[in-house]
């Protein structure tokens, strides 16, 4: 009995010794190889980055993560896209240090964070986004006033329109667009896009009840691209050539197209920043994996990825004015 136990122990000890040797051997070889192949990368960075937050930014975050992984194979980004509202909760709980949000934190969320940790979260702007109003690609309509947008999508006319707009003939640009009434497409109630559009484009009013509510922005764009009588709203990163994104008149009566310059400068009325909130105690530095991600995001390459994902990169002045980490 005793001898059996000892052999077992020896075996286990031997096995662990062997495993340790093999592992350290592998690690050694890796250390040898890595500097060779990653000439400019000085140190090996590893670790799993956790992020919880906005589903609008899911594609963007995942692409940043992919790029980071190709650069540092041991770094993995795990992203849980459960809506902007989940980011402050997760940051406060301490399960993640990174909370991407498609809107700024409310003062309540910020206060809660300060109460828990004693310092505010680091707020970083990472890209710019906009909501676009789209019509079919052959639709002659090019621009709408905010009152018109409201009159088309709402029943409340809170932005100051006079009559609801139901048919294409009611808009001067589409008098000859003989497709009858306007078929409306939008997002479902639970999405942030729905809420933001209601707040900014309907001046807080109520949506009509005959809007087709799609479970995703890309479904909205696809639906509008398929039917000539359709109009819808979606996130900028879902824009395809199947639809045409309308310009919106600003308060000075100038039609602003949702192009890169107008969104970057904030002239386009429905534009917004995308944020990344980081839990960083003052005076401390971030772990190398987090630093690498932030460096990537703020770099030219990271901003190019934002552009490739359909968002608008930040101007260098905005990038430069950010708080240091």
């Amino acid at each position, binding site marked *: 009995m005793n001898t059996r136990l000892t052999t077992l122990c020896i075996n286990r000890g031997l096995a662990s010794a062997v495993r340790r040797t093999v592992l350290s051997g592998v690690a050694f070889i890796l250390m040898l190889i890595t500097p060779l*192949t*990653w*000439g400019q990368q000085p140190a090996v960075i590893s670790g799993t980055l956790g992020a*919880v937050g906005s*589903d609008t930014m*899911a*594609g*963007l975050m*995942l*692409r940043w*993560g*992919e*790029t980071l992984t*190709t650069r540092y194979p041991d770094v*993995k*980004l*795990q*992203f*849980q*896209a459960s809506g902007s509202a989940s980011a402050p*909760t*997760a940051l*406060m*709980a*301490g*399960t*993640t240090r990174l909370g991407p949000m498609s809107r700024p934190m409310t003062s309540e969320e910020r206060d809660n964070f300060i109460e828990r940790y004693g310092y505010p979260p680091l707020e970083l702007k990472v890209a710019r986004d906009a909501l676009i109003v789209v019509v*079919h*690609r*052959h639709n002659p309509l090019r621009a709408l006033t905010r009152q018109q947008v409201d009159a088309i999508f709402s029943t409340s006319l809170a932005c100051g329109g006079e009559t609801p707009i139901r048919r294409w003939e009611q808009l001067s640009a589409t008098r000859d*667009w*003989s*497709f009858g009434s306007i078929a409306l497409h939008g997002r479902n109630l639970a999405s942030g896009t729905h809420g933001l559009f209601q707040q900014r484009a309907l001046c807080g009013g109520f949506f009509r009840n005959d809007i087709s509510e*799609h*479970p*995703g*922005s*890309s*479904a909205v*764009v*696809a639906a509008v*691209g398929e039917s*000539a009588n359709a109009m819808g709203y979606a996130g900028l*990163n*879902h824009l*395809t*050539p*199947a639809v045409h994104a309308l310009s919106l008149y600003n308060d000075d009566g100038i039609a602003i197209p949702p192009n890169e310059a107008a969104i970057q400068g904030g002239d386009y009325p429905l534009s917004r920043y995308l944020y990344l909130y980081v839990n960083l105690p003052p005076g401390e530095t971030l772990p190398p994996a987090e630093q690498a991600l932030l460096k990537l995001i703020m770099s030219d390459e990271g901003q*190019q*990825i934002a552009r*490739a*994902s*359909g968002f608008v990169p930040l101007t260098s002045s905005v990038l430069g004015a950010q708080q240091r980490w």
Partner: protein
Amino acid sequence: MTSASHTVSRRRRFSRVNDVWPWLCAASVALSLLMLGALLTLLLVRGLGHFWPATLEEVTLDSGETFAGQAVREVALPQRAGDERLYFTGNQDIEGVRWRWVAIDDIAESAQPDDLIRLDRSPWGDFIGRLVAIEQHDQRWEGDAAWQRLNALLVLPASQRQDSQLLLTTVDGQTLRQPLASVASAQAPNAMSVWQKTLAWGDAVWRFLSEGPRAANTDGGVWPAIFGTVLMVILMSVMVTPFGVLAAIYLNEIAHQGRLTRLVRIGVRNLAGVPSIVYGVFGLGVFVYGIGGSLDEWFFSDTLPSPTFGTGGLLWASLTLALLTLPVVIVATEEGLARIPEAQREGAVALGATRLEMLTRIVLPMAAPAMLTGVILAVARAAGEVAPLMLVGVAKLAPQMPIDGEFPYLHLERKFMHLGYHLFDTAFHGEDVQAAIPLVYATALLLVLIVLVLNLTAIFLRHYLRRQRGNEC
């Protein structure tokens, strides 16, 4: 005479009208088969066709503009005669968009030159154009040599081609320098033979099955979704089989066969008809918020308020589906038990067997095939079910597999990917539906194949067993 012939002709006319009805009925069968066939054919053609290397066209418009791309589909123009065609043009980094709609009347000329190539890169996606040269340190290859050099380099892992650069040009003359490290594959589809295309097709199908999604689910494969589906279904059958069989044995062998048992039996049968979403609601309310929430408070309070088991996950999803498929297993097992002649049981008991021995030695072996059929049907139903999963734990993208080398190896609390939900997600939530649709077709085909194969197995099993039992009796 005349009146007689009159009635005869009337009867004949009447019977002729009547004779039309069987044809309408036959047409219903034919229509159902036609719809089923059309659906399967559509999935097969579009799902598998997507992987075939598509011909690239160089299109010159009447305005003199040129571009290169792959023709995707055609639709009628609104308010104007004629059709327009959708081209996939790639080159998002140069043009800003990946698609182009062109009225067919506007096309002056369209050719298929052999030297057009298609590169798969990240993060910008496909490039369609021409290869000018390839540069490595001070060396430079051009023309055919460049193409050969590119193919040779692409065999190497990405980390070993850091120092190479491609010089590319689009068909309208814009040039681009592309680091080779971010290129995944290269093709010149117009120059490929049928055999090469078949090889490329097989390779693409294999990559679709074995790789994870890339570029935020708009590209890449479905391996994690296959894995997640299979794992969830296995867990579910592990849970549903013992309980379903227990309940069936209780109902059929032990419970007093009275009015109450009959009511319960009807109740169980009816649960098979309760919408799956209702089970999802139950799973969310009871398993996730109820049990999961309590588990978190007791064992994982250090991570609260962020939930461990108090959010949807693999465990809750498979439990919910187990509940959903429980009636299927119970009904099938009961059917099997009811078919066993009473004489078998009586014989066993008469020879001195206890009830347990009678059950384990005589009844269960005889009912085993029926149970198996029930479990397969349950698995088939669970594999195709999506609605309840949306509530209890399926994820858009789960970078961590539910099984890995980290203790405790099987992570029941993790979210997982599921083929059916992946299909829904890429079709409605993705960044670009047009780009995702071919992948959605392929995923749909895969899902349908899995479910059909499972169902066919169940049908053949049942058929075979019935026949065998028929011989026995």
